């Protein structure tokens, strides 16, 4: 029980901390640049966050099982270019079919990762470092094979591009997808048997196996989900930016992992959840936006990686220090 109390304590502490950072950042940026609190800018932040959240939900599940998926950026890129070419050649494809197609492509890649890790027993970091290179390479193979190196707005049907602008009951259609996915993932992880098994496998794999949980299947499921969501994210990326080349999504795995880690999901597995991930995603998007608004927009893009790196390090260091202190405090109280 101590462990659970510790976890909730840390979670409350850090969610409060992140929220504080977020509020501070919003205050500083809105004072520094009056464009921050305009509806156009906030809408842009929401749309950026939407894509990040979709990928981060899958990554959260993978990290909860004590694994990591470095290939999500490459999967997003492949799906975006692939679906873009399909839409260019067959403009009549309905939007739900395009979304499903992207998710299916991602699912195949995700299953590849999952089989390597669960069945092949290749450590996730190595397996997905390898598939990151392989999937990115496949984008080049596909683009040179189909002779389509870039998809621009003029290649895409208008009703598809409307995905990013159309509203439904006053809410952007685009934002409904991540919200539904968040609710579904939150329910699954918190309330269902297979969702709890994700925590069990990541928290103590040996104990989970002894308790009869098929940990291999859980890990496979986590990677498949991560891949499918990255594929779906690719289609939304295509609709939002309407400009996709072979490098789309490169390095995005870092943003995704940063969002998950900042959101309190432990890289040691078994601790965390999608609510924290959502806060992490919003914080990252606001940081990115503030960088652009507060500095010279030309140079901001070059420093953003450094900021992400610092944020990842800051989050994990703060996490380790707080957990360590709480653990010591709990031990003292018991003594």
């Amino acid at each position, binding site marked *: 029980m101590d462990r659970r109390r510790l976890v909730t304590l840390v979670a409350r502490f850090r969610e409060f901390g992140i929220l504080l950072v977020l509020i501070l950042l919003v205050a500083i940026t809105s004072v520094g640049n009056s464009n921050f609190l305009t509806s156009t800018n906030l809408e842009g932040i929401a749309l950026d966050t939407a894509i990040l959240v979709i990928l981060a939900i899958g990554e959260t599940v993978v990290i909860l099982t004590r694994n990591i998926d470095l290939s999500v950026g490459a999967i997003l890129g492949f799906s975006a270019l692939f679906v873009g070419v399909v839409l260019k050649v067959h403009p009549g494809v309905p939007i739900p079919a395009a979304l499903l197609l992207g998710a299916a492509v991602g699912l195949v890649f995700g299953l590849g990762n999952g089989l390597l890790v669960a069945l092949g027993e290749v450590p996730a970091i190595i397996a997905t470092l390898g598939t990151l290179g392989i999937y990115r390479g496949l984008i080049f193979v596909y683009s040179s094979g189909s002779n389509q190196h870039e998809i621009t707005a003029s290649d895409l049907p208008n009703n598809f591009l409307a995905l990013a602008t159309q509203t439904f009951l006053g809410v952007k259609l685009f934002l409904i997808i991540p919200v539904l996915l968040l609710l579904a993932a939150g329910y699954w992880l918190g309330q269902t048997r297979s969702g709890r098994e994700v925590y069990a496998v990541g928290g103590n794999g040996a104990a989970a196996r002894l308790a009869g949980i098929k940990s291999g299947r859980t890990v496979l499921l986590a990677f498949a989900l991560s891949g499918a969501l990255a594929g779906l994210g690719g289609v939304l990326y295509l609709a939002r930016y309407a400009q996709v080349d072979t490098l789309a999504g490169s390095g995005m795995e870092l943003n995704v992992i940063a969002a998950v880690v900042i959101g309190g999901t432990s890289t040691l*597995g078994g601790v965390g959840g999608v609510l924290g991930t959502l806060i992490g995603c919003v914080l990252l998007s606001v940081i990115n936006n503030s960088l652009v608004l507060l500095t010279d927009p030309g140079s901001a893009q070059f420093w953003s990686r450094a900021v992400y790196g610092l944020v990842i390090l800051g989050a994990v260091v703060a996490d380790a220090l707080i957990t360590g202190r709480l653990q010591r405090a709990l031990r003292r109280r018991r003594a």
Partner: protein
Amino acid sequence: MSAPPSEQAGGAVSQAGTDAAGVTRGRAFLAKLARWELLLVVLLIGVLVYNARLSPYFWDSQNILDDTSNFMEIGLLALPMTLIIIAGHIDLSVGSTAALASVIFADRFQAGWNVWLCCLAALAVGALAGLINGLVTTRVKIPSLVVTLGTFALYRGLANGILGNTEVSGFPDSFVGIDLRYLGNTHIPAPLIIFAVAAILTILLLHGTVFGRYVFAIGNNEQACRFSGVAVDRVVVILFTLSGLVAAFAGLILTSRLQTSRGDLATNFELQAITAAVLGGANIFGGSGTIYGAVLALFVIGLLQNGLTLANISGDIQTIAVGVLLILSILLPGLARRGRAAFGRRRGGDASRAKRSPAT
């Protein structure tokens, strides 16, 4: 993600006990290792034959030696990487560190510093970058995988930020073109000599010193090392600092060879360095590995890429080959081990060898 070293003591290597059975198992392991390096030699010959079929000029000694300059920087990164992997850690930040060092060199050069002073500044920054990796890993007790994933982004971001999308060139002749310098009247280019010296030094360090034995011991059982009074944290910090220093050195050689410095230099180098170490037989869970294997694997990877270039296959697609090699080098031995274990069980043999790896 790899389990903490304390949980990995059950790896294939450390199962060797102190009794007679353990000794035979240890010998069997050595035999397997020899087979692994033999496999690498066969692979290397295969790649050489493939290259020779693609281009009649390949076997020209000048050509084949000059080709090696293309992957000596990755080779330099792979040497400390092997040590770090044997110790049960990993360093994802080496490519970024190499780029940062190159950019610091270029930035100080633009500021009017003497070119060799610029080199010193770059090396110092590299060592500092490695020191930070080591200190955060050991002091805060965060897995090095997570720490170096963060610094992978941080160091690359600093390199990108300092130079933006500009590139710096115009370095003096005394600095550029290291790959065009040869040993005496031979065709042996300077980067190959530098790598050979570095490899010999690393072999001496790993296989000939107490420090090297500590590296193996930490990778096998960190807890036991702590209880035996080994300064585990100090060894790990030294390894990461060395890795940063060598990465900076590799970054300078790359800058000299390309004659320019950019923030996106050495992208994906960590992937190739890790591939060389692991394909060379280093156990990703720590505890075993050799420098000889890593060197052989480096030449397999480097000459394979050279062949793919000869066949007009672009660098972006070549990463597929590296990725496949990386995964197969871990997948196949694991499958073979499990296959043997299953076979042994069926014959009523030692079932304990069918131990699951702690990978997931």
